[in-house]
């Protein structure tokens, strides 16, 4: 029983990060019809920046005899997400905007180029060794679940995931900016005719999508080290999520992330050999059955 609870918690823990990643990808696609191949590397970049910031701050504080404490470290964690959002706000107007009038292959290629560049920029800046913000994990300790000990930080991530899902939903469906985002995604010409600066909406949407990717990376990094290549892996998983859930749908990203994480958690247990293959096959089955995913619209 306890094992089951732990497994469920683990699966939700994974789903939280995956949801953030996929929601960002989906939001960008939904509003701008761009599939950002560099999205996974934005996620990795967020993870690295957060891990580095926390590590540096803890070291700096320690050298002055200060203990940052859990709260102090947690506050620093989202810095990675902010850095990625800033990066996104630079990338959209400079690299992507000039290509909107060209066939969509070109944007896909630009983001592929960006993926390669980011992969090495991360290596150049942070070096080849894994980075982690494990100090947070250690500082928070574990809580008992029945007879088992469960890391308290994982529960924080689960909490962040729930808050992010609800918050994002409220943001998109209940705020003025959400209305603007949805309107622009449905008919950008008409949005412009109603006085909305579509160019600015695009920057904002792209930056928010990047922020979500960065946040997805940031929340993981106290539990799992940031390593080279994590972005490329993450992207394919995010693809599976949105293929299952539906491109451009927030609900789809949530349900997709839960399904993918559940399958992976179960996979490790029961069919470790072919866990990934099963996941892809599920995605393919969904696409054949519902070409636009569970929640997608053509």
């Amino acid at each position: 029983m306890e094992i089951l609870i732990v497994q469920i918690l683990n699966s939700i823990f994974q789903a939280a990060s995956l949801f953030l990643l996929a929601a960002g990808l989906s939001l960008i696609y939904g509003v701008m019809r761009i599939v950002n191949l560099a999205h996974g590397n934005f996620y990795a970049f967020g993870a690295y920046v957060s891990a580095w910031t926390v590590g540096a701050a803890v070291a700096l504080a320690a050298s002055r005899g200060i203990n940052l404490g859990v709260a102090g470290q947690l506050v620093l964690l989202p810095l990675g997400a902010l850095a990625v959002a800033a990066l996104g706000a630079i990338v959209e107007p400079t690299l992507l905007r000039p290509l909107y009038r060209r066939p969509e292959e070109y944007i896909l290629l630009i983001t592929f180029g960006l993926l390669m560049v980011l992969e090495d920029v991360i290596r150049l800046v942070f070096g080849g060794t894994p980075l982690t913000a494990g100090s947070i994990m250690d500082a928070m300790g574990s809580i008992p679940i029945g007879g088992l000990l469960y890391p308290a930080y994982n529960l924080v991530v689960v909490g962040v995931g729930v808050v992010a899902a609800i918050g994002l939903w409220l943001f998109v469906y209940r705020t003025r900016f959400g209305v603007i985002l949805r309107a622009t995604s449905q008919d950008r010409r008409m949005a412009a005719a109603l006085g909305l600066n579509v160019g600015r909406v695009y920057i904002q949407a792209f930056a928010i999508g990047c922020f979500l990717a960065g946040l997805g990376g940031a929340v993981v990094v106290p539990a799992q080290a940031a390593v080279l290549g994590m972005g490329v892996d993450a992207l394919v998983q995010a693809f599976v999520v949105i293929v299952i859930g539906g491109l451009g749908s927030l609900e789809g990203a949530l349900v997709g992330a839960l399904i993918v994480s559940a399958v992976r958690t179960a996979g490790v247990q029961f069919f470790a050999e072919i866990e990934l293959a099963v996941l892809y096959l599920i995605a393919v089955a969904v696409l054949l059955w519902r070409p636009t995913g569970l929640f997608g619209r053509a």
Partner: protein
Amino acid sequence: MPTARTGPSFLWLLAGGVPVVVVLAVLPPFIGVYQTQQLTYGLAFAIAALGFNLLLGYTGLLSFGHSAYFGAGAYAVAFIIQRLHVHSLELCILGAMLGAMLVSALFGYACVRHTRIFFGILTLALSQVLYSLALKFFWVTGGTDGLRASWNGLTLLGGLIDFKGSGAYRRFVVSYYYYVLGLFVVAVLIMWVIVHSPFGKALQAIRDNETRAGFVGIRVRRYRWIAFIISGLFTGLAGALWVPLNGLTTPEVLYWPFSGEIVFMTVLGGFRTFFGPIIGAVTFNYLKVYAVASSQYWQLVLGTVLVVLVMLLPAGIVGTLGQLANKLRPKQLQQG
């Protein structure tokens, strides 16, 4: 009936192609083993890009999963050599083509129901099924270590050429170069005929206007599927030829960024031209080799080149040269 231009004539292809092939044929003694090897890689990738471009350039489908067919070819060859102890490369290639055809027929059947971005994502997801299987079924595929496929047990042309004794490696590189060059020429000719056949025209029609293609009676989905399989076969052949040269195959060639590289080659050369992907593949191979050799941050270099190219040369190398030639031509007429 006056026969005006209805397509590039075969003679024209020969006139342009024969000198290039002759130059390629006399090169090895002048450029040494290492460069011969690089050129062989370039030619193998060119076959892959040629196949890929049947989908992108001629059918209008951007696959992000061609690593699967390259990998299928590569793994099939390595498997046949290592596990079935077959030494004839022809048999290996036959097996590889069969493997690539199976995989592309299966994947293609699912993928051609979609177009545009969904097609791209689906091809990517499917290629990753293969990747994860290759990682996990290590007793077949060697897992992360991959499969070795050593050149020295191989025989070419049904046993006529083998590599034993002294200087064998050098002999292998040179004869393998000619072997690949020969297959490359055959592949180019076959692809040239395909894209200039009525079938090729039908593909271009589907690319241009899917709806109307249906209304002139073309079975759009079936034709896309056939194109997909042909494309997979070419790319699989490339994978098969690549393995003996590389000595082993690892899951890297099944991982999706390698699909990205195939896309890169094609766009670099120009996907709206027949020869673009060939030039692109050879160029890309050199770019990558030198980027890797000159900097540990080769992805940074390559990525930047890609971004700049897409921004500045959307038509690719060959496409841009063609545009330049077109721009110059009327001027010359005016001057003359």
